[in-house]
């Protein structure tokens, strides 16, 4: 009697779970046309984009997906894209990559660092497919291109705006993991803030997760109650801006213009538009002129960065001198004459990392694992 009931319930439960699993499998986005093999010359070039988390996260994924749509539009019928959301940074990613290759994609773009090792593996197994990996710099296979970007430039400007709007010397940043691109942003932010206020310092709280609104909100509140006068968001969900807005503390958004989350105390957002870089890359891939570039380091001169229009709180608090300084630095980055880490730069332990008159190489930038003087909360790890 009892055994039969358990079996009955188990069967019922399995039947109930099954549709849920089915729904999960084709999460987010149109399915790539299954079954067909590699596209012939007349077919459009097929590119699949993979995202960790939802497609519309109000930040990083949104910035990539906007660029994906624009890319398809700009290249007309020559290129077709698909989006694959909710691809975890786990072995499951390898299966997703394989199924995307099976369905005939010519290129796979991963927008998240945690897919790197699965992308590298797949790149070695499929030399005829092009792989593009964001947030990475390691030239592991000839058909793998790492996209790296000078986040430090945009965050330098954002740091200037933060210091100009903050009533305290202490500024706060909420970030996920201390990986090199994040370290560059943290350092750029701090150096920019110090260009406006030499006493500025940055307190970082690491949430250990790319998308966890609860933790981001908690981190923001902690920073505010510990006296931070402005908050910068390196994680992109609405929680950080809202938490700062609730306490009327100036805040800076990331990847897309996030003003709407809390307009009253909004300063600006560090906005990125990948479209020019993607158009260039795929144009050359389609016409065959692409020779493989193991490491692309995009910066202001590539036209991918900008600061969103300033909010009312910035206008109310920043002086004309501050605004002029920000404009001047922006021009410097655009022309390529200015560099964030031009020496002298000292790290948190007082060691001179970049001597006067020198600068960091792209390799040094893409491996950055140290914090500049004035940053606390990120141990210069390993």
């Amino acid at each position, binding site marked *: 009697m*009892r055994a039969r*009931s*358990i079996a*009955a*319930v*188990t069967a019922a*439960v399995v039947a*109930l*779970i099954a*549709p*849920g*699993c089915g*729904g*999960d499998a084709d*999460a*987010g986005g149109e399915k790539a046309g299954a079954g067909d093999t590699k596209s012939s010359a007349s077919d459009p070039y097929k590119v699949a984009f993979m995202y960790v*988390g*939802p*497609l*519309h*996260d*109000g930040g990083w*994924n*949104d910035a990539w997906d906007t660029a994906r749509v624009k890319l398809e539009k700009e290249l007309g019928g020559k290129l077709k894209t698909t989006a694959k*959301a*909710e691809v975890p940074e786990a072995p499951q990613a390898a299966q997703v990559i394989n199924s995307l290759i099976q369905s005939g994609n010519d290129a796979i773009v991963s927008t998240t660092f945690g897919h790197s090792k699965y992308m590298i593996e797949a790149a070695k197994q499929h030399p005829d497919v092009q792989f593009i990996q964001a947030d990475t710099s390691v030239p592991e296979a000839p058909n793998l291109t790492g996209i790296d970007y000078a986040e430090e430039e945009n965050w330098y400007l954002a740091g200037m705006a933060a210091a100009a709007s903050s009533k305290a010397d202490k500024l*706060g940043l909420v970030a996920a993991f201390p990986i090199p691109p994040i370290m560059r942003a943290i350092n750029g932010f701090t150096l920019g803030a110090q260009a406006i206020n030499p006493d500025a310092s940055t*307190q*970082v*709280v*690491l*949430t*250990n*997760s790319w*998308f*966890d*609104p*609860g*933790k*981001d*909100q*908690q*981190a923001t*509140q*902690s*920073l505010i*109650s*510990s*006296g*931070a006068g402005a908050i910068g968001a390196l994680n992109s*969900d*609405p*929680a950080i801006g*809202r938490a700062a807005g*609730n306490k009327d503390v100036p805040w800076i958004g990331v990847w897309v213009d996030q003003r*709407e989350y809390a307009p009253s105390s909004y300063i600006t957002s560090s906005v990125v538009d990948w479209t020019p870089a993607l158009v260039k890359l795929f144009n050359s891939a389609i016409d065959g002129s692409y020779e493989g570039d193991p490491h692309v380091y995009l910066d202001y001169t590539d036209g991918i960065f900008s600061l969103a229009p300033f909010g009312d709180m910035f206008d109310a608090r920043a002086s004309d001198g501050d605004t002029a300084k920000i404009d001047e630095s922006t021009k410097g980055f655009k022309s390529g004459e200015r560099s964030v880490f031009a020496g002298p730069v000292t790290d948190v332990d007082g060691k001179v990392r970049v001597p006067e008159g020198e600068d960091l190489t792209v390799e040094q930038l893409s491996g950055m694992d140290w914090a500049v003087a004035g940053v*606390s*909360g*990120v*141990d210069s790890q390993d």
Partner: protein
Amino acid sequence: MNDGLLITMLVSGIAYGTPLLLAGLGELLAERSGVLNLGVEGMMLVGAVCAFWASNRTGLPGALALAFAVLVGTLAGALMASLHAFAAVTLRVNQIVSGLALTILGGAVGLSSYLGQLGGLAGQTGKHQFRDLDLLGLGDLPAVGPLLFDHNLLVYASWALTLAVGWYLYRTRPGLNLRAVGEDPRAADAMGVPVARYRYVHTILGGAFAGVAGAFYSLVVVPTWTDGMTAGAGWIAITLVIFSFWRPGWLLVGAYVFGVAMSVGSNLQARGVELAPELFSAIPYVMTVVALVVASSVLAHRRIGAPAALGEPYERGAK
């Protein structure tokens, strides 16, 4: 002084402990009737996703939308729990198996994710959020202000519910009957207490509480829906019931201790304490394990508080 580390930690302890308290109260009621429900996590997630969906889709204005959303979350949790009640009370299956199945069903790759996709909820910004109410304008008092008078409505509700559950258990006839059902269903049955009905009602009530706890995540902390957003809080709530020896008062204390543990990481980081963030994230879960070890070793010696018939199906006339 209200920005001091201690006050900040206690305040965030209350904020993060509240869903644990709500879910724990529900589980406490179910367990007091002798039904162990390990499906709390699944019920919370379904409650969270349904409440968020309701709050964003209803055209009602602010306060009404929130009330409606909480109601939907409550009903969703109750509906989930009724599955477990049917399995545990009517079919008399193994409650551990049935409860686990409920968590799998509702959980991060199950019904809640499916509903989230169906509604296109991931990444949507919530239209409505429970905000802190400065009660009687006392929120700025030193220490007691932020601790007692500056919370959102669900926090105040959780206090009222804690008192209500305590009063119900120890001061009312149905509460006495409930405890009897959990301790010795045969004797209760002989006294004329409808055992099956008591178990159904309190298991479902437990689900309703879990649904509200889930709604707390999607309407209070950050108004948004993320797959698996409760991040194990349902399991912590079950632990808390054991750790509180099935008493509502202790449950409240335990929930806040865990709430502080959950927020200690960012609070210390923000004040310049440098430690691996992974370590901070692990604190509540490590505490869960420690709490269970302590509680079970104490329980092994003297069975304090545990309803004697917990987890045992009751069949009239069976030996």
